[in-house]
């Protein structure tokens, strides 16, 4: 089946929702697609909590604006896996292939957490920081569970606050950045509402120790997690816990941008003032252009949506505000830059590639990503290197390989073409 739209927006997080609304309000027919079962992306995932903060107010406002617009077709559980031709995306939804024809496309594919391999990180009970929050939002009960939150980035305190409010006993929050970095960051946002937001999270996690300059070095347990060892560089100590929420800030999802031929610089998609990439008719907004959080994603999404709809003056009017928000993104990158000590987090027996169980001993013998893939199958499993590739980009400074379709595993029937139906017995995983 092929469906045609004026504008296709890939990713229904804040940037994608803002782009879709802005374009539809200019009279364009818009498709908004997302891999997840509901719109909102990671930050607006799940039902609103009792605590009404700026994030939940923005969520309600934007979801209302999205849902009341009949010009937007939302496609959920739908993921793009190929670019079969000019102005055409191939996606899979409910096991069926759907091809989407567009005049303009807005990539709002968001970010994923950066995970660094350390001994025990593959134990059940170890989650990403946003990962554990997503599980709890999706119904996982954590009342009276002992949780350690560790890694890096502003997400940690937000996750800790959320877990506390859902009944978890958060025994520590460990941020690898130093107090010095954090205080400098605090000073830079002192004149904005963000300082109040950070203070609010800290107030909601009062009683839970916050350690700066501290990171996890090992998780322990038999079949599931039992404790985690933390380090501050001079001292190590072990904390018993049922769950570990651990992520080292974010890396952008740029696979589709790469497949479309967009230029990347230092891992981020290059865009002009109107969020247009160097490829005609392809726009990009939100985290793939630089990790900047909710407000910047919304601002970039609006500019991209308006520009894609041809409302250039309206788009230009929003540029100054977006550029002010970008300054904050630059501060984030400096503050939460990963420390050198984390390069030695992986030990010889530590599994680096979770899909293929390739250890650090094995993978670190190679000089680059391509050789390691060919010789060890590292990065060749179903995640296609999204987890280990990002880790190795930090650990060994390996740059990612060129991106080839399918950018997600899909059924053979979907690969075969848009008209084929997908009988269940053909539904086999396609490994890269």
């Amino acid at each position, binding site marked *: 089946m092929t469906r045609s739209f004026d504008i296709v927006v890939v990713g229904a997080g804040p940037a994608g929702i803002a782009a879709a609304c802005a374009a539809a309000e200019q009279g364009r027919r818009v498709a908004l697609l997302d891999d*997840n079962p509901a719109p909102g992306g990671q930050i607006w995932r799940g039902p609103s909590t009792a605590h009404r903060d700026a994030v939940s107010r923005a969520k309600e406002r934007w979801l209302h604006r999205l849902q009341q617009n009949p010009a937007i077709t939302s496609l959920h559980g739908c993921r793009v896996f190929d670019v079969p031709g000019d102005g055409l995306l191939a996606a899979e939804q409910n096991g069926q292939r759907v091809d989407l024809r567009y005049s303009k496309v807005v990539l709002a594919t968001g970010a994923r957490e950066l995970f660094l391999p350390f001994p025990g990180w593959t134990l059940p009970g*170890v989650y*990403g920081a946003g990962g554990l929050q997503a*599980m709890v939002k*999706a119904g996982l009960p954590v009342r009276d569970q002992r949780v350690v939150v560790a890694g890096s980035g502003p997400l940690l305190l937000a996750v800790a606050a959320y877990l506390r409010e859902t009944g978890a006993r958060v025994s520590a929050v460990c941020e690898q950045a130093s107090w010095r970095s954090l205080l400098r960051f605090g000073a830079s946002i002192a004149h904005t509402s963000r300082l109040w937001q950070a203070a609010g999270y800290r107030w909601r996690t009062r009683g839970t120790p916050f350690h700066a300059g501290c990171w996890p070095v090992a998780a322990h347990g038999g079949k599931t997690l039992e404790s985690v060892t933390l380090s501050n560089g001079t001292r190590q100590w072990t904390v018993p816990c049922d769950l570990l929420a651990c992520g080292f800030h974010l890396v952008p999802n740029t696979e589709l941008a790469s497949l479309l031929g967009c230029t990347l610089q230092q891992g981020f998609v290059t865009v002009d003032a109107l969020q247009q990439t160097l490829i005609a008719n392809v726009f990009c907004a939100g985290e793939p252009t630089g990790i900047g959080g909710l407000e910047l994603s919304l601002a970039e999404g609006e500019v991209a949506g308006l520009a894609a709809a041809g409302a250039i003056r309206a788009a230009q009017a929003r540029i100054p505000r977006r550029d002010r928000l970008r300054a904050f993104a630059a501060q984030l990158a400096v503050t939460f830059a990963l420390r050198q000590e984390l390069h030695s987090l992986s030990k010889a027996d530590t599994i680096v590639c979770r899909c293929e*169980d390739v250890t650090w001993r094995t993978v670190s013998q190679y000089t680059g990503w391509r050789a390691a893939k060919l010789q060890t199958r590292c990065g060749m499993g*179903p995640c296609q290197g999204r987890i280990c590739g990002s880790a190795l980009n930090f650990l060994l400074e390996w740059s990612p390989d060129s991106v080839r379709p399918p950018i997600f*595993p899909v059924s053979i029937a979907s690969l075969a073409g848009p008209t084929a139906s997908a009988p*269940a017995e053909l539904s086999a995983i396609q490994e890269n």
Partner: protein
Amino acid sequence: MTDTVRLTVNGRALTVPAGATVAVALAIAGAACRTSVSGEPRAAFCAMGICFECRAIVDGGPHQRTCQIVCRDGMEVRTE
């Protein structure tokens, strides 16, 4: 609409809150989602559809990312 959903995990009945994902059902059941190529138990990790650690057999369909699937009444889930 009821506020709970009933499904089976490896043949055992389980009741979960409505809206729960299959990955959450597996965690509540205390089941690892899959066994890794070297024999380790693995469970949901990124919970955002990226890492594929939570894949399991859902209603006969293999390698389904359970963190992206919402539980439905009568669903049959098997670990891999």
